[in-house]
């Protein structure tokens, strides 16, 4: 079997190192100085024997050196592969982890605190508005009640209580004397009677004027009382209107603030999701780099083929899941036994498509929880 080595004598992945056929050279030998043996022994003359022994010793030394280099290369390869698998397992564990709990929790906390602040502010302002509305209603009612009480208590008295006049009737002062002189007093009394009638008419007119003015005065008083009642009703309606506009404005401000808060929280969540997507892309890029080294086999979602899956066939849930080898590789970071870790890395490298049964057979303890 041919041996494929690198220039540094390291075994390339996918090859198997086997004991080499030893070659020695001896120009004095009839056979051209060349004796080929499988175990490094040979035959010849005494001189040639000594020379051959020296050659054999060198060959043995070279062989030992080669074997050590080969073992070191194998160990380095295993470490690289082990590290790559561990790194891939870590990255796959981080992939799709979602928004970190601390960030999503902070965003939710800010949302809750913001909502509480807005609701508290709105409630406080509404309380102040209600307090002022109550105070305003009280002031208005008191003011108009005082006015109505005053109007009821202070009825107009100017014309109502103005003294009505009585007509002054007079008798002719000369009547008795005229009778004594034999002159009839009827003519003089007639003039006195006419004057009395005129006086009575004047008094009646004046009293009637007072009555009219008193009625007008009373009507004005009733008008004032009605005005006061209407004023109270109107002012209370105005206050109610202002209060309604105030509550509507507060509600509008509250809703606007909540909408603004919601918008900012959504923006924060979107930013967190974008950050997480960018992180996933970075992880995927890193995984792609690892897969490109050949140390890490790709999963089906990463462009590999799930075990048992065929082209054009919908993969089964089992195929989509992590393969047995991947599950075995994922256990590497937790293994402290270097020999066991080396064996696992070697098995994973040599059997990337091993089934769960094969994994269980190779590693009974670790494979118990696989598949």
């Amino acid at each position, binding site marked *: 079997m041919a041996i494929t080595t690198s220039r540094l004598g390291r075994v390339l992945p996918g090859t198997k190192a086997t004991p080499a056929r030893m070659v020695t050279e001896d120009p004095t030998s009839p056979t051209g100085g060349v004796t080929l043996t499988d175990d490094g022994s040979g035959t010849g003359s005494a001189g040639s024997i000594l020379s051959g022994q020296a050659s054999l010793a060198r060959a043995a030394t070279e062989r030992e050196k080669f074997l050590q280099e080969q073992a070191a290369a194998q160990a380095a390869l295993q470490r690289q592969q082990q590290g790559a698998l561990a790194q891939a397992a870590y990255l796959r564990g981080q992939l799709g982890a979602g928004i970190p709990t601390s960030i999503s929790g902070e965003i939710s906390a800010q949302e809750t605190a913001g909502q509480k602040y807005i609701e508290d502010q709105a409630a406080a302002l509404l309380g102040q508005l209600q307090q*002022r509305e109550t105070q305003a209603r009280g002031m*208005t009612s008191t003011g108009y009640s005082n*006015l109505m009480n005053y109007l009821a208590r202070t009825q107009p008295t*100017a*014309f109502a209580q103005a003294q009505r006049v009585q007509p002054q009737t*007079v008798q002719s002062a000369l009547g008795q004397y005229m009778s004594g002189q034999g002159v009839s007093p009827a003519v003089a009394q007639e*003039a006195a009677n*006419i004057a009395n009638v005129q006086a009575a008419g004047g008094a009646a007119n*004046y009293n009637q004027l007072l009555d009219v003015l008193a009625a007008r005065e009373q009507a004005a008083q009733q008008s*004032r009382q009605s005005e006061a009642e209407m004023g109270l009703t109107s002012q209370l309606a105005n206050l109610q209107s202002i209060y309604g506009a105030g509550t509507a404005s507060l509600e509008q401000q509250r809703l606007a603030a909540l909408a603004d808060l919601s918008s900012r929280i959504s923006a924060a969540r979107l930013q967190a999701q974008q950050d997480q997507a960018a992180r996933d892309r970075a992880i995927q890029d890193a995984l792609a780099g690892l897969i490109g080294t050949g140390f890490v086999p790709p999963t089906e979602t990463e462009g590999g083929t799930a075990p048992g899956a065929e082209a054009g066939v919908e993969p089964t849930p089992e195929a989509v899941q992590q393969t047995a080898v991947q599950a075995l590789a994922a256990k590497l970071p937790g293994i402290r036994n270097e020999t066991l870790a080396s064996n696992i890395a070697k098995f994973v490298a040599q059997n990337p498509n091993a089934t769960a049964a094969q994994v269980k057979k190779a590693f009974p303890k670790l494979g118990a929880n696989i598949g």
Partner: protein
Amino acid sequence: MAFDPAIYEAARRSLFDQYAQEAALNAYQRYLAETRGQRPILQLEEAAFGRTAAGRLGEVPRLTSSYGRRGLQGMNVSSGVYKQALENYAKQRERQLGYSREDLAGTLRGYDLGATQAQQRFESGLADVERSKARQIAEDAQALLNLR
């Protein structure tokens, strides 16, 4: 404007002062008018009988003594001229007295009406002050509610 009750107290004082001045002036003018009005009445009464030495109205009309001096009136003398003259005089006298009394009563009623109107303005002004106060309180309350 904030509510300031002192403004309404000042308005109330102003109304009362104005009413007091109007009432005093009216009362004084009424007194003068009554004095002037009583004068023609008194003159008419005195013109008929004259005054005695004690200052009282006389018991015999001056008209009688005038006709007596001309022999048209006296003891056992009765003339138609005197009777006609006495009748006309008494008639004119009652008529003039009636006019004068009615004029005086009308003038005094005018002053009484003026006093009553002044009182009415005073009462109405007080009601207006109370109304303005109530409205100012209501407007202040509305302004208070608008402060938000």
